[in-house]
Each structure stands twice: as structure tokens, then as C-alpha cells.
């Protein structure tokens, strides 16, 4: 009980890693999408654990409630056919090679970055930072604070993003719409 947060962190981390591996390894895209849903839900939990309750809720609402349903819709519309499934086994070797390469690169990168920052940052100031979730959850976790930021400091980006969404909606409709004239 002493380290309940750490335990929860490892639990969610485990679920996230596992489900993300599931996303890229499962041959059935529907299952992949469902793994992704699991990933998103646990990511939301992770956000909550780190103290961003608002983002956690938003994550579920946006990703799980909207984006992934869209994915599943599209998959069910077009791609769920047995002959389309990839044979993961035959690509296993390739996957492993790429994974190993990338892992090697990432390890090297991490090492280099940590060396880089160790030199840059005064270690006496506390290099090993920790996340204190509950101490400032009141400050940053509330929708109120976020909305103040959003409508004061980030008003222009907010407006721009609404424009982006509008364009996205119209673009999606235009792209996905069947060209009826052509079909006739």
C-alpha cells in the first residue's frame, strides 16, 4: 500500500505496452483496433494517475468515444476479410530485425541524451525529477484552469484548431464521397 501509485503505474504501463504490441502484431485489424482501445483507456488511466484528470476524461471521450469508433467502422466496412489478413509469422523475422535495430538506436539515443543532459543540467538541482501528482492536481487538473489558459493565452491557437477541425470535416466528406457523376 505504500507504493500504490507506483504499483498502479506499473500495472498501466504493462497494459499499455502489452496492448500496443497487440496493436502491431495482431493479424486481424479489428483486434488491433480493440487493442488500441485498451491502450487508450489505460493511457487515460495513466493521465489520471499523473494528475491530469481532465485530459484523462478527454482522452476517453475523443479517442475511445470518437476516433476509435470511426476506425472500427472503417475496418468493418472494408478491411475485414480473411484473405487480407497478413501472415504475421512470415514477417516475424523482418519485424524482429527492425525492432532490434530500432531498440538499439533508441538505447544509444537514450544513453547519449542522458549523457548530454547530465553535462548540461546541474545535478545538485535534482536531476532525477519526480512527478507529484496530488500536490498540484488542484492547480492543473481542473477544467476551469485549462479553460482559462485556453481562452486567454491560447485563444488564437484555439480558434485555428477549430478551423482545422472544420476543414478536416469538410475534407473528409469531400474525399470519402462517391463521385456519383463518374459512376453514372
Amino acid at each position: 500500500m505504500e507504493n500504490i501509485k507506483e504499483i498502479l503505474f506499473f500495472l498501466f504501463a504493462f497494459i499499455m505496452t502489452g496492448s500496443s504490441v497487440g496493436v502491431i502484431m495482431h493479424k486481424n485489424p479489428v483486434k488491433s483496433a480493440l487493442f488500441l482501445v485498451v491502450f487508450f483507456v489505460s493511457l487515460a488511466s495513466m493521465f489520471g494517475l499523473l494528475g491530469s484528470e481532465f485530459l484523462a476524461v478527454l482522452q476517453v471521450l475523443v479517442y475511445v468515444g470518437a476516433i476509435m469508433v470511426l476506425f472500427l467502422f472503417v475496418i468493418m466496412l472494408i478491411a475485414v476479410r480473411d484473405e487480407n489478413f497478413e501472415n504475421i509469422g512470415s514477417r516475424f523475422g523482418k519485424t524482429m530485425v527492425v525492432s532490434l535495430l530500432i531498440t538499439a538506436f533508441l538505447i544509444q539515443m537514450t544513453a547519449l541524451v542522458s549523457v548530454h543532459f547530465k553535462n548540461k543540467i546541474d545535478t545538485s538541482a535534482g536531476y532525477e525529477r519526480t512527478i507529484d501528482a496530488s500536490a498540484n492536481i488542484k492547480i492543473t487538473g481542473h477544467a476551469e484552469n485549462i479553460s482559462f489558459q485556453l481562452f486567454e493565452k491560447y485563444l488564437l491557437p484555439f480558434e485555428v484548431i477549430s478551423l482545422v477541425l472544420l476543414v478536416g470535416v469538410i475534407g473528409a466528406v469531400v474525399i470519402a464521397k462517391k463521385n456519383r457523376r463518374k459512376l453514372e
Partner: protein
Amino acid sequence: MIISEIPMSYVLILTLLIFSIGIVGVLTRKNIIVIFMSVELMLNSVNLLFVGYARMWKNLEGEMAVFFVMAVAAAEAAVGLALVISIFRTFHTVDITKIREMKG
């Protein structure tokens, strides 16, 4: 309530792990939708990093970034899936190794 702190390095490593899983997915899969989902994985790993740092520095900037990433991701998903549908309609497949119009 028991309060304990999570080291930032944990979050960093988790993020890296998920990000690289995303990269592997993008590089090895053939199904365009799965690739798309792998991209989402990468995006969200970065989101996690943003939240972690926002918490660490105790300000809202990181969370605002996540907010905007989510909004853009929503738009991107809508347009991307529309493109997938349109690709499927044109090529009758979603296997990107079979779509080689750009072959030199």
C-alpha cells in the same frame, strides 16, 4: 490517502518504448489502417510525455499541447480514414505494398 511520487524517468522510458513499438508497427505492417493506428500509438506516446513533463514542471503548457494534439489527431483521423476509404475504392485493397503507383 497514500501519496507517492512517480519518477519522471519511468514515464520517459515508457514513452520511448511505446513510441518505438509504434515505429515498428509503421515499418513492418502492410495494412494501411494498422499503420494508421501505429501512428496514433506514436502520437499518444508523445502525449504521455507532454503530460509527464507538464506535471514535472508543474504548469499547464504541456497539457495544452496535448489538448491541441488531440484536436489535430481527431481531424487527422477523419481525413485519414476518408483517404483510406477512397484508396480502397480505387485500388480495391488496403495493402500498401500492392499500391505502387509511385514506383520509380
